[in-house]
């Protein structure tokens, strides 16, 4: 449900070098940042989730694994659990599945982004950060096609350039930015519209 702001959710896809990028980005967002954020980070199927606790502590906010049928709430950051694809339903709840890997990954960024694009249409911000491979490129294109805002981390800055590079090649992204500038843009959007 829209409540007047311009964007209802942010989805982030990140792979190799991701933890470092997220450890910079999340604490830089002001506490109380409203727009919910949903992250797919490529992780081992056997990850114990300790990276989530680390981020939560450093970021001083609620960061949790998404549960199936869970309603997406403001101010919360959700991450895809290991070995499941994460999707967003049109009623803005989460769905999980164990379908085949996509782009050698489960969770896959494309799977989250494509479902989020259908659920939020033009009220979504999609961001591709550092990572190897090309997961997320198709998903970011879908977000663009549905009228959402698309951002790629500047490949020159990214620890692993191939994911943002693939996204930029697949879509005319709205912004190519450093992590610092991504934070500033998100804060500006929140302050202007929300």
């Amino acid at each position, binding site marked *: 449900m829209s409540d007047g702001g311009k964007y209802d959710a942010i989805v982030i896809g990140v792979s190799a070098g991701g933890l470092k990028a997220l450890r910079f980005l999340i604490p830089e967002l002001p506490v109380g940042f409203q727009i919910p954020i949903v992250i797919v980070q490529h992780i081992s199927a056997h990850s114990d989730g300790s990276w989530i606790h680390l981020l939560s502590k450093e970021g001083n906010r609620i960061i949790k*694994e998404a549960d199936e049928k869970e309603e997406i709430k403001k101010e919360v950051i959700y991450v895809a659990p290991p070995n499941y694809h994460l999707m*967003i*339903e049109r009623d803005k709840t989460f769905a999980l*599945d*164990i379908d085949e890997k996509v782009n050698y990954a489960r969770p896959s960024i494309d799977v989250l982004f494509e479902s989020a694009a259908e659920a939020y249409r033009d009220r979504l911000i999609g961001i591709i950060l550092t990572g190897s491979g090309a997961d997320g490129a198709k998903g970011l294109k879908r977000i663009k096609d549905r009228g959402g805002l698309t951002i790629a981390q500047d490949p020159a800055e990214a620890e692993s350039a191939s994911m943002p590079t693939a996204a930029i090649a697949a879509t005319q992204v709205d912004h190519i930015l450093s992590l610092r500038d991504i934070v500033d843009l998100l804060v500006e959007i929140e302050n202007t519209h929300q």
Partner: protein
Amino acid sequence: MALIDLTGPDIELLLTTLYRQYGYDFRQYSEAHVRRRIMNRFILSGLNSMTDMQARVQNDNKFAALLLQDLSITVTEMFRDPEFYRSLREKVIPILKTYSFIKVWHAGCSTGEEAYSMAILLKEAGLYDRTTIYATDFNQQALDHAREGIFSNELIKDYTINYQRSGGPESFSSYYTSQYNMVIIDQSLKKNIVWANHNLVTDSVFAEVHLILCRNVLIYFNKDLQNRVQTLFLDSLINGGMLCLGTKESLRFGEFEDRYLEIDRKQKVFKKKY
């Protein structure tokens, strides 16, 4: 290719046709899941519009069969989530040992990898000879595959690691024979498994059992269907019987939560109250 808009009514119409014409009911599945599968088939088949797709489903049995396979879930592994199988060994097997005969229902067994994993576990505990495992699925193709017990060699390496992580005491290779690039599951593991076609959406209770395994199936269902299936499980379990769900599944809805005790919170093992 232009991006199509797959609306809620488009999906509903397609699923209704599949149900009326072919008897498989996906109308209460997660829409995000169904949408992704339909979109994939749409793109693979080079169709132009949802009207075309609707017509193909109506008039082309082979196409409909493909879509039905797309919509059903066939991804599984032996000893998927080793920590869960460790919990079975340590917390569930000791309870099963107290019964003179044991009935296990593996609901949504797909191609059988997890049913065979259960058979291995029971064999190692010395319980297999007094056990019947009902392994059920609505997907006949998957069941046929499961009954054969032939799996790709490539996967065995991962399965072996899973087995070892689950606390498996034997050499995993003692449970299969390699042939070319395939492995054949040991015959002795098959003898007490009953493979049967059962549809959680439309079929009812068929046995009283001591243990139900249904992992990563309910996540595909909407709340109403989840409730239906939970009722089915509750009615199928003996008092004191155990229910195992997937790592990300729960009994969070009050009416069921009250009927079970938690045996392992993290691994989602529950025991039906007396």
